[in-house]
């Protein structure tokens, strides 16, 4: 078999990469250490949340698979931040850890042009700085034109519990022991990162009377723009909330030195935003209790995941800790918590397309690039799959800008700023987040997905119809004008809205905080879908703010147009501060905008760089 693209790793990044490449017509091989672990969720049993949920929508808009898969496997769904503005709303679903991988595996197996192979990749075939294929642990060579590495935590993975250190992946499988050394030989900078996961408890041994109920929303939602809710609102599985006790804190403080982290057994750098329970207790001494969410992992088995209780304590201390929690006095631990260390590359060695700067046609995505999270991995996997395909077709890469997608922010941050800890997407990382909403991911990205070739005719037709309906409803609202009749004013007063003295279009009336589209229904000649109405209402109500965000984005886009020549020699740019010189030489930004986002490169350096480029007639 002649493979065009090989994807190494079957996690969330690998699945999206392999599907994108196969769907774009490229003969694709997905190599995984264990087929059972394809699309596995080794940590929290949920998908989405602030920012992350929007990434899932973006994946769907571009033609990826994660949204559809979670729609088919959710136990509970919530829309978060509903009390705030539309820009920060995001979906989060509790996923069934059995169903999700099953649905994804079926999709992969049914995909044309895609072959799955169980094997371990230990080396790469490289000739003249171009990738030629991979070498398996048994020495077998498989040739290809492009390779996408999505190795997750499996590069030299080590599982830690207290002082015990085991060479293994999250489920006790063999990790790849040589691939990261071989990457290092090629010239990649390897860094050691760390993450962790809490213990799993047997559901029947928990006394839920001491916990409060956390149910799903009573409205049905979907992540995908093309699905109807596939679950019954009343049949959702609830989560529960409990708190740590003073006893829990005492056990942890008394045994702090026994944890891998405080005992000094960990080399890797862990994420600040996802601290272990011992970290939380040490850093926030004054806090009397911490929230813990009890989340079901599946309807097919009994494991309950204690969100917020990640630890690297030895097993006997974990027993004590768990038993100190309310309702867990007699709880049985099915799987102990652990910390895991793994190798990752320095993402500064990547282009915006996720192709490595060192080796042509070699791409990387997911945790190997220093991120954490299923959604972040899937977003990168999709982009790597798309861009590897486009490269083979001789087309320009698809690079999403910071004002177009969280995925764009994610990749730009990685390749511009690098990361020293596992990177998690947050809404605050997106400076144009009002433009990057949950509701408009399709309007932002579906045309790109179509152009690339991942959106079917049927889906695209549906999308175009929605766009047209939005336009139509907006212009209708602009055309219909209310006059200050007694009846109109009576109705307005009833809605707590100021009566009219002059005529007003429905469009302008909708800008009032207290007026919603469903209150104007009687004036409209026809009705529209909920989605269309929501979109129109957001666009009109927040028009002023959206315009402001667009103006800010345009300033950035102007700088984005100022390209820096690829062959620039920063040594020739006199008077750059030495830190700026070093950072610019390492990152080699493609535009002035990107250069200005590099930390340590300050405005004076940018001015000097622009003056240099102007002087050299390169700008």
């Amino acid at each position, binding site marked *: 078999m002649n493979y065009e693209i090989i994807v190494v790793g079957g996690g969330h990044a690998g699945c999206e990469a392999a599907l994108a490449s196969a769907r774009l017509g490229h003969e694709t091989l997905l190599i995984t250490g264990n087929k059972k672990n394809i699309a596995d969720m080794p940590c929290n049993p949920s998908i989405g949340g*602030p*920012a992350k949920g929007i990434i899932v929508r973006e994946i769907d808009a571009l033609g990826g698979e994660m949204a559809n898969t979670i729609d088919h496997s959710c136990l509970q769904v919530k829309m*978060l*931040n509903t009390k*705030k*503005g*539309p*820009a*920060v709303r995001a979906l989060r679903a509790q996923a069934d850890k059995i169903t999700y991988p099953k649905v994804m595996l079926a999709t992969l197996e049914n995909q044309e042009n895609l072959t799955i192979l169980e094997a371990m990749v230990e080396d790469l075939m490289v000739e003249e700085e171009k990738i030629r294929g991979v070498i398996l642990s048994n020495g077998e060579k498989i040739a290809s034109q492009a390779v996408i590495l999505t190795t997750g935590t499996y590069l030299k993975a080590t599982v830690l519990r207290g002082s015990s250190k085991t060479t293994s992946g999250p489920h006790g499988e063999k990790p790849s022991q040589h691939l990261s050394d071989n990457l290092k030989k090629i010239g990649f900078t390897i860094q050691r990162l760390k993450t962790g996961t809490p213990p799993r408890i047997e559901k029947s041994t928990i006394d839920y009377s001491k916990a409060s109920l956390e149910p799903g929303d009573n409205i049905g939602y979907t992540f995908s723009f093309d699905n109807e809710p596939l679950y019954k609102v009343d049949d959702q599985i609830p989560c529960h909330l409990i708190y740590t006790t003073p006893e829990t804190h005492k056990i942890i403080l008394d045994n702090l030195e026994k944890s891998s982290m405080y005992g000094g057994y960990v080399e890797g750098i862990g994420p600040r935003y996802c601290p272990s329970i011992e970290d939380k207790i040490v850093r926030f001494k004054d*806090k009397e209790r911490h*929230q813990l*969410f009890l989340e079901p992992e599946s309807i097919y088995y009994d494991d309950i995941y204690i969100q917020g209780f990640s630890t690297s304590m030895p097993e006997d201390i974990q027993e004590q800790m768990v038993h100190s929690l309310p309702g867990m006095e007699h709880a049985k631990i099915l799987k102990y918590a652990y910390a895991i260390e793994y190798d990752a590359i320095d993402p500064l060695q990547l282009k915006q397309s996720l192709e490595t700067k060192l080796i042509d046609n070699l791409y990387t995505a997911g945790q190997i690039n220093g991120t954490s999270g299923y959604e972040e991995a899937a977003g990168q996997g999709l982009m790597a799959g798309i861009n590897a395909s486009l490269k083979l077709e001789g087309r320009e890469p698809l690079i999403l800008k910071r004002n177009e997608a969280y995925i764009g922010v994610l990749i730009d941050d990685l390749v511009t700023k690098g990361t020293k800890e596992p990177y998690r997407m*947050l*809404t*605050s990382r997106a*400076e144009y987040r*009002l433009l990057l909403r949950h509701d408009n991911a399709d309007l932002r990205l579906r045309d790109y997905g179509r152009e690339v070739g991942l959106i079917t005719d049927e889906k695209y037709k549906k999308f175009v119809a929605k766009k047209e309906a939005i336009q139509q409803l907006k212009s209708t609202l602009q055309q219909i004008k209310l006059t200050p009749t007694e009846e109109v004013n009576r109705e307005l007063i009833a809605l707590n809205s100021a009566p009219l003295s002059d005529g007003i279009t429905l469009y302008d009336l909708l800008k009032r*905080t207290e007026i919603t589209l469903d209150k104007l229904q009687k004036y409209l000649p026809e009705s529209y879908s909920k989605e269309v109405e929501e979109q129109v209402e957001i666009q009109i109500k*927040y028009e002023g*703010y959206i315009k*402001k*965000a667009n103006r*800010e984005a345009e*300033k950035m886009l*102007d*700088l984005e147009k100022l390209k820096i020549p690829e062959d620039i020699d920063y040594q020739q740019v*006199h*008077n*750059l*501060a030495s830190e700026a010189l070093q950072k610019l030489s390492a990152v080699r930004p493609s535009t002035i905008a990107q250069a*200005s986002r590099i930390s340590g490169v*300050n*405005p*004076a350096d*940018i*001015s*000097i760089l*622009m*003056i240099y480029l*102007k002087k050299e007639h390169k700008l």
Partner: protein
Amino acid sequence: MNDTIAAISTAQGVGAISIIRVSGSDAFSIVNKVFTGKDLTNVPSHTIHYGKIVDQTEVIDEVLVSVMKAPKTFTREDIVEINCHGGIASTNKVLELILRNGARLAEAGEFTKRAFLNGRIDLTEAESIMDLISSKTEASRKVAIKGLTGHISHLIRSLRQEILELLASIEVNIDYPEYEDAVEMTNDKVAPAIQSIKTKLHHIIEESENGRILTSGIKTVIIGKPNVGKSSILNRLLDEDKAIVTAIEGTTRDTVEGQITIKGVALNLIDTAGIHETEDLVEKIGVDKSLRLIEEADLVILVLNQNEKLSAEDRKILSVCQNKKTIVVLNKSDLEKRIEEEEIPYSEIIHTNTLDENGVEPLKEKISELFHLEQLQSQDDSYLSNIRQISLTKEALSILEEVTVGVQQEVPVDMIEIDIKRAWEKLGEIIGETYTEELIDQLFSQFCLGK
């Protein structure tokens, strides 16, 4: 390498010594050509040498020259500074000679521009030095020096920190909606925080407007009908301060007719051209131009003859001056009072006779009072010292006004936060901590870079 530039770097006409600065790769050889004494191309760096500047055989001045080699100089280029002792005429002659021998006359601020471009100083420092160069009085020099030592940065940084903390507390609710310990930031909680920041910005702007007056002086226009005594006021003001009068016509942008110093602050009498000949400003330059002048001025001195009733013209000018700091001089107090004083809507009214020797004293007192000049001298507060900084601060303030409006309209807090962030970034621009195209635009226009 840059060409060699030269200019008189001390204020014209003030002080006994003038310094000519020459900077660039040919600085040593150019000065050496006209200098008798040691061979300047062959002396150690940062040394001072006595000698004469000669043109052919004619000795122009006895001088001390400082020789400083790159890169440890202000511009990071070779620099020679010539200390001339012979007064303005001979200093000009020395400069002329240097220019004839291969240097080019530096544009205003060009030394600073080179220092900036060669990485010697950053943008904030560059601006402060620009102010230092154009500062004409001791008081304004102090303001400029404060800018240099980082007072501006400190002031703005602490405000930005305050805003940043507010931003963070809003963001945490968004990214961690189920986290119970963070206080839910609602508009009700944001509003007072914003109000407090706005008050501080207001204060800074107010102080800074005063600071600007210290650096650039008070733009003053004297206005009134013919024969009311405008020129006698002007002449008395100028007479009394002859030592510091610099009546150089058409040399500055504001066409300053004359400049006097009151309590250390410059009073720039702007565009009173023609006042000497016809005494008829309004007639000569037309009402439109008078209005424009009033618009630009920091201070309007309206001179009226108290012996005459208010004319339509007077009333018009009175109404235009509503929003300006205005002093009304009711002149000719020796004559019978016919003017309807009660119809003049200002409290700052002076009765005087400017033909008297001490006739303008009450006017000077009034000016000092109006601009709090006494306080201005004694206060030790920090303020922003140039127009770019002040206007960025004003922009930040007006963005925060939008926040207040948003709060009133019950816009969701995460949208309001977008404006708070913009205000934070605006303040960052002052100290060069955020980057936008405007900063570069400003840079290129202020330093006239490019081809």
